[in-house]
Structure formats: C-alpha cells, structure tokens
C-alpha cells in the first residue's frame, strides 16, 4: 500500500516541479524587457556599464592632483600574476626619510581583472573602473603609469 501511495505521490510532485520550471521560463518569455543582452556597437552612445563590472585598475586623483597611494606595495604583493609594479622613492618628511610612491606601473595585458588588489589597499587608493574598450595596435601601450605626472600624496594619509 505504501508503495502505491508513493507511486502517485511521485507523479504529483514530478508534475508540480515541471510546472514550477515552466512558470519560471514562461515568466521570462512574457517579460522581454528583462533581456540583458546588449547590442554593443550600435548602442555605444547609450550603453551604461554595470556597476560591478571590472574593466581596469585606476588610481584615484582629486582635483588638486593628489592621490592616496603611500607606496606600501600591498597591491603588488596581492596581485597573483605580477600585473602591478610599485617603484618607490625616499622623501624627506620632518627630517626623516620616508618611503613614497614614485611610479605606479600597471600591466593591463597581464591583468585578469580578479580585483584582489582593491581590498588589499589599506588606504583605498585604487578602484576598478568599468571601461572596457582596451584594444590598441601596440602591446607597449598596455603598460600604463597610473599616477599622474606631478601628483603627490594627500595630506594626512600614512
């Protein structure tokens, strides 16, 4: 008797799960507004990239051409494939020699956009931008210097 009940139970729950699945796909079929495909080259002007999209690493600068990077190399250590190279310099602060950023070299051609450098930064100096048109004709153009010429560290960042 138990097996007979189970037999019909199985049919009932089987049909129920099939209908649940069909309801999900039916919902998508009747809501074409939820389509996420982008018609890329045509909608280049109106295309709005998604907030969490990871395109490249940028070093943020404020309007006075100041950044927050202390040159601590935490991002260089965190990077799994050697994309980031920090070149230091020594500067005098109150008569002491202090480590500071000289050049922030970023090899875009090696970057896998894993984003591990972003949480590694103790001063939140770098972020992931959502630009994605990185095609160039010369490979050397992919090696970028992220700190602007003449930029310096913000006051109070250590």
């Amino acid at each position, binding site marked *: 008797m138990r097996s007979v009940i189970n037999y019909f139970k199985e049919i009932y729950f089987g049909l129920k799960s099939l209908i649940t699945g069909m309801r*999900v796909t*039916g919902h998508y079929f009747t809501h074409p507004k939820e389509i996420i*495909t982008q018609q890329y080259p045509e909608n280049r002007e109106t295309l709005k990239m998604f907030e969490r999209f990871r395109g490249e690493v940028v070093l943020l600068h404020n309007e006075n051409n100041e950044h927050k990077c202390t040159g601590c190399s935490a991002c260089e250590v965190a990077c799994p494939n050697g994309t980031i190279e920090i070149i230091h310099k020594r500067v005098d602060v109150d008569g002491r020699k202090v480590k500071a950023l000289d050049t922030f070299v970023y090899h875009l051609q090696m970057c896998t956009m894993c984003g591990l450098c972003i949480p590694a930064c103790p001063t939140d100096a770098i972020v992931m931008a959502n630009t994605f048109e990185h095609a160039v004709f010369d490979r050397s153009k992919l090696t970028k210097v992220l700190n602007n010429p003449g930029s310096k560290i913000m006051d109070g960042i250590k």
Partner: protein
Amino acid sequence: MKWLYDFSYLTRAIHEGLSARFEPGTVVILEMVLVGITFMLLFALLGLVLVYAERKVSAVIQQRLGPMRVGKWGTAQTLADVIKLLLKEPLINKDADKFLFNLAPFVIMIAAFMAIAALPFAKGLHAIDFDIGILYVAAVSSLGVIGILLAGWSSNNKYSLIGAMRAGAQIISYELSVALSLLTIVVLTGSLQFSTIVESQADGWWIFKGHIPAMIAFVIFLIASTAETNRGPFDLAEAESELTAGFHTEYSGLKFAFFFLAEFANMFIVAGIGATVFLGGWMPFHIGSWEGFNAVMDFIPPIFWFFGKVGFMIFLMMWFRWTFPRLRIDQLLTLEWKYLLPINLMNIVLMAFLSLMGWHF
C-alpha cells in the same frame, strides 16, 4: 473567397482543368507531382520559419535576444544559414558505408513526407484521406527511426552508433504511448479516419468534450510525441554534451540540413496530429449556444485555425525543450514503462467506461 473556407472548390477546379487537357492516367501523375511540390515547398517554408522561431523562443526564455544582425530582427538569419549549408562540402568518413550513409537522410525525409500526406489542413485540403488515417500515421511516423539507425550505423563512429541505438530504444518505447493516447480519443470518435474525427468535433473539441481522461491523454500525448521527435528533454539521440551530435555527427552540408529539416518537419507533423485529434483540427472554437461568438469564430478561415493550433502545440514543445534538463536513458525508459504506459492503459479503460455510460459531452 469561397475557396478559403472550403478548399474542395479549389481542388475540384484544378482537377477539372487538368482532366479537360490530359488523359486520366496523366492527370493522376500530374496531381501527385503537384501535391509533392506543395509539400516540398511547405517543408522548406516550415524549416525557415520554425528554425527562426525556435531560436527566438529559446533566446527570450534565456533572457537573450537571439539572431538580430541579418535583416530586421534577424529574420533573414535562417536564409543565410541555408545558403551556408548549401555551399558546404559534403564530407564522408573514410571507412563509412557510403551507400547507407547517403541513403539515411532520404529515409528520414521520405518518412516525414509519407506522414504529412494524411494530415487534414483545412476543409477539403487533404492529400489523402485514409479510413485508417491514425493507424497509418502512427506506422509511418516511426519509420523515420530507420533513417536514424542507418545514419548511426553507417557513420563508423561510436558516438553516432550510441546515439542511434538510444533513438531506437526511445522510439520503440514511446510509439506505444503516442498510439494509446490517440486511441483514447478514437474510443469516442469510433473512427480512425481523420476527416471523420475532425467532423465529430464541430460542436466542441475532444479535449473539452472528453474532459478528464481526454486531458490526461493530451498530456501523455505531448510527452510521448516530444520524445518521439527526439526533441526537448528527450534529445538523447543527439545529446550534444555526451555524444557531440549523436547520429548526425559525421554529416555536413546538405545531408545535415536534411536531418535538421526532418526534425522540424516531424515536430510539425506531431503537432498537427495532436491538434487534429485533441484540439479539433481546422474546426473553429465554438461555445454552446453563443450564436454571435460562434459566427465570429466561423469567419476565421479553417486553415488559420489549423495553423494556429499547430503553432500553439509547437510553442508548447519549444517551451518544454528550453525548460527541462535532458533525461538519462534509464530515466527515459522508467518514465515510459513504469508511468506513462500503465496510466495510459488505465486511462483507456476509463474512457471506454465513460463513453459506454455516455458521461462525455
């Protein structure tokens, strides 16, 4: 416009026109050629439309856009695909059985042509009206599997052979369910002739008139016919992820196109049978004594009713295909032999009882 509602005016005009010019023997041959060309054109058109529909339906269900580049909304995409397939080189394996390899696509197409001949498209638009129409269609539609088996065997490829054997096991099993679910309705109609079955639904479709057992039979028919056409969750014969492309792995160019076309043609035939037997074929939708409503429904020509119902059935099959994951071969056979077949047999007994007591409408 009278011929749009009753095609026998048109067919009789063609027949009389031909008879006036040729001898009776020549007329028969000419008419057969004419019907053949019509079905060939229909299949070509169906292939174009259904491939596009399938790609668009699957795309929207998966939140994609589907083909968009060739023509407005990608409407010319299938045309471009056809041209590509025509230009492709027909490759044959080194150790393939060349005769069987070349024969297989034609066997599948011939089976599809034989099956579609018995379908009633509209009033008077019926290539051949057998008095054993359903039996004929059930017999002929399972011939296609011979083509699949030939293709798998002659390819000299283990994956093709596995796919073909799976298709064989599948069709032998599910043919039973298709035939039995159709028989459930035949119990009510008392005839295997398609024209009689359609005429008997003038006052209501069998799925409504036969209520509970007819609906069970309809669901079983949908499942079994999807399996019989090797589609949807039952596409074990081609199982892309396991067998590359199953029985048609080694085919290219026009011969591959034949397999592809046959799949959609079979889908159309199965949907047509389902629409004819359960949904009233070309009969308009009537509700009891609502004279005005019935008159409006009658105004729509029967051929549009038929293609509308077939379109609905085809959409259901596409919906299945893009919702459910593929079954394993043992699950497939369990579903048929442990669930569908016993339910089907009980359902026929129930239907016979209802029909005996006159408890249907």
